[in-house]
């Protein structure tokens, strides 16, 4: 238990440093969210730009003269209370945006991770057991090639092929607006259908990397003495493959699974923007584009918290499932 307390304190320190770093970074970002509005006002009303800017600042509730330190103290203070700040662009609290967007992102990444993990584990173990055979070469070559495709290219291709060319998938959104959200089969079906694109874009590269890691791990575990001992005991291949090889090869991956989910929170910007999917990444991209610093810091903090929680959970899960760690 001491270990976890220790670890928690350490992660807390890391968190504070990271968040402060993010804050400094965002606050040094050039650009003024009120600029566009000011240009518009100045042009429409034929007034001096400086004056228009002042009006725009007031309209958006931005105080450009507030010192960075004050802002920082305010921000940290809010964060302590679980308040992620205020979005000037959306004119609402970041918490509300997170409440709207996070479930979708979590939905996509957890489903994508689940799918890619299960298939990747299976394929990796399968390939490793057929090491050197054609099927192994095929699987690992394919996985490597998929890994070589930059994710945004993959996302664009998926969108084009499935939504545009063959019109199999709906374009954009999380569900059709003319449906009432409910637990009905048809609604859940629509939600799943809308999520297929983003899920594929996340899951395919993931799957490739799980496959390759699992293949490597399996190959390593297969060399272990206890595998040969299991063979010597006359255990069936299927039992060895599942209980002995797969379980042991999977352990390190299960830990990285949790961490992976944390990291994916931050990596959704491109995919969600391409698929127009209303998750965290979508808002993140928007926040950068419109220089919504409040939203930006808020989402950044969320992602950092996500990664840290994931790291912590990974430690915990790993200790839970691996007796070698548990007993130490």
């Amino acid at each position, binding site marked *: 238990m*001491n270990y976890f307390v220790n670890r928690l304190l350490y992660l807390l320190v890391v968190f504070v440093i990271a968040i402060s770093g993010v804050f400094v970074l965002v606050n040094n970002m050039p650009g003024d969210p009120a600029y566009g509005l000011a240009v518009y006002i100045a042009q429409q009303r034929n007034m001096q730009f400086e004056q228009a800017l002042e009006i725009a600042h007031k309209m958006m509730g931005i105080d450009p003269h507030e010192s960075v330190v004050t802002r920082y103290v305010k921000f940290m203070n809010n964060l302590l209370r679980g308040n992620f700040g205020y979005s000037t662009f959306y004119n609402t609290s970041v918490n509300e945006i997170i409440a709207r967007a996070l479930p979708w992102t979590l939905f996509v990444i957890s489903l994508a991770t689940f799918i890619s993990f299960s298939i990747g584990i299976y394929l990796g173990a399968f390939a490793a057991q057929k090491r050197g055979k054609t099927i192994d070469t095929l699987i690992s070559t394919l996985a490597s090639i998929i890994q070589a495709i930059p994710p945004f290219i993959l996302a664009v291709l998926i969108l084009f092929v499935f939504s545009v060319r063959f019109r199999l998938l709906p374009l954009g959104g999380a569900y059709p607006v003319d449906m009432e959200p409910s637990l009905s089969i048809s609604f859940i079906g629509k939600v799943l259908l809308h999520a297929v694109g983003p899920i594929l874009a996340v899951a395919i590269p993931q799957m490739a990397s799980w496959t390759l890691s699992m293949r490597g791990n399996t190959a390593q575990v297969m060399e272990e003495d206890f595998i040969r001992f299991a063979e010597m005991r006359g255990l069936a291949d299927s039992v060895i493959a599942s209980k002995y090889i797969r379980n042991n090869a999977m352990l390190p991956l299960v830990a990285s699974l949790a961490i992976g989910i944390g990291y994916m929170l931050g990596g959704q910007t491109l995919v969600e923007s391409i698929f127009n999917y209303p998750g965290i990444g979508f808002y993140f991209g928007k926040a950068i584009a419109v220089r919504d610093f409040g939203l930006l810091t808020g989402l950044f903090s969320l992602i950092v918290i996500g990664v840290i929680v994931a790291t912590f959970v990974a430690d915990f899960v790993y200790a839970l499932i691996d007796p070698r760690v548990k007993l130490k």
Partner: protein
Amino acid sequence: MSKIIEIKDVSKVFSRGFFKKKHRVVLEDINLEISKGDRLVIVGESGMGKTTLARIMADLEKPSSGEVLWFGEDIHKIDKRRRKELRGKVQYVHQDPYASLHPAKTIYKIIADPLANAQRVNGKTLYQRTKDLLEKIGLVPAEYFFNKYPHHLSGGGRQRLAIARALTTDPEVIIADEPISMIDMSLRAAIIKLFKDLNDLYGIAVVLVLHDIGAAKYFTFEKGEIVVLYGGKIVEKGRGIRILENPAHPYTRVLINSSPIADPELARNRVLEQLRSYDVPIRTKESKGCPFAHACNYYTEKCKEEVPPLVTIEEGHQVACHVFGK
């Protein structure tokens, strides 16, 4: 000034846990001396503290209490430079020659680098000295090995190489931790022989940590001392041949009794002495009594309460036992 290493009242406690509450006494009040040209064997099973003792002697670990003197100077009180100077005189050979040799360096480099560092030589002299050293420990022809890597050698060859490396600083004492346990039976004698030769021919004091009583006997039957450790304490100490032929402590007896005998007839007829327990005792600061009490077949109530002192039962033979101490 013939004393090279003196260990005075050395204890070692390993602590762990967040508040360092869990602890384990690994060594307790050890006193030892090594003088020029000595042979010393530390025997005992694993977990008895022999490796820790050897590492403390070689200053690879700090004792929790007590003094370690090299050439009469407390190594934890002298300055770094002096310690460095003295360190060359005390060398250590690890148990596992696979791990103690750099896997990606050639044999030439493994010897020549420290040689150049210690002797401040280079060029042809370095080459010649490296060659001499390799030949000295029996890797002949030396040039054949120069561009080989450790994994090209057998276990015995590797251990020789590790010994050769220890010799680069012209040490006055070599401490070797289980130098033969990772080596094939047929090559073990040769390594022990090498240590004996180093001792005989160059006057280097040798401290061997062994669990193999036979090897201990081979090393000390001409001269040298044996120290038997149990539960972090010296239970018996004395001239090698004397102890092996007339063991006083019950543990020493069991140890000798359990050692393999290379004679089928004798082996089949011998009766193994069984202990009451084969567990390794875990001693804490609160532990009382003789560490062997829980396993000893001769224990008395006294053994549970009082730590037996190390008493001399004969010239050059000390034992720490309430029962056999007299």
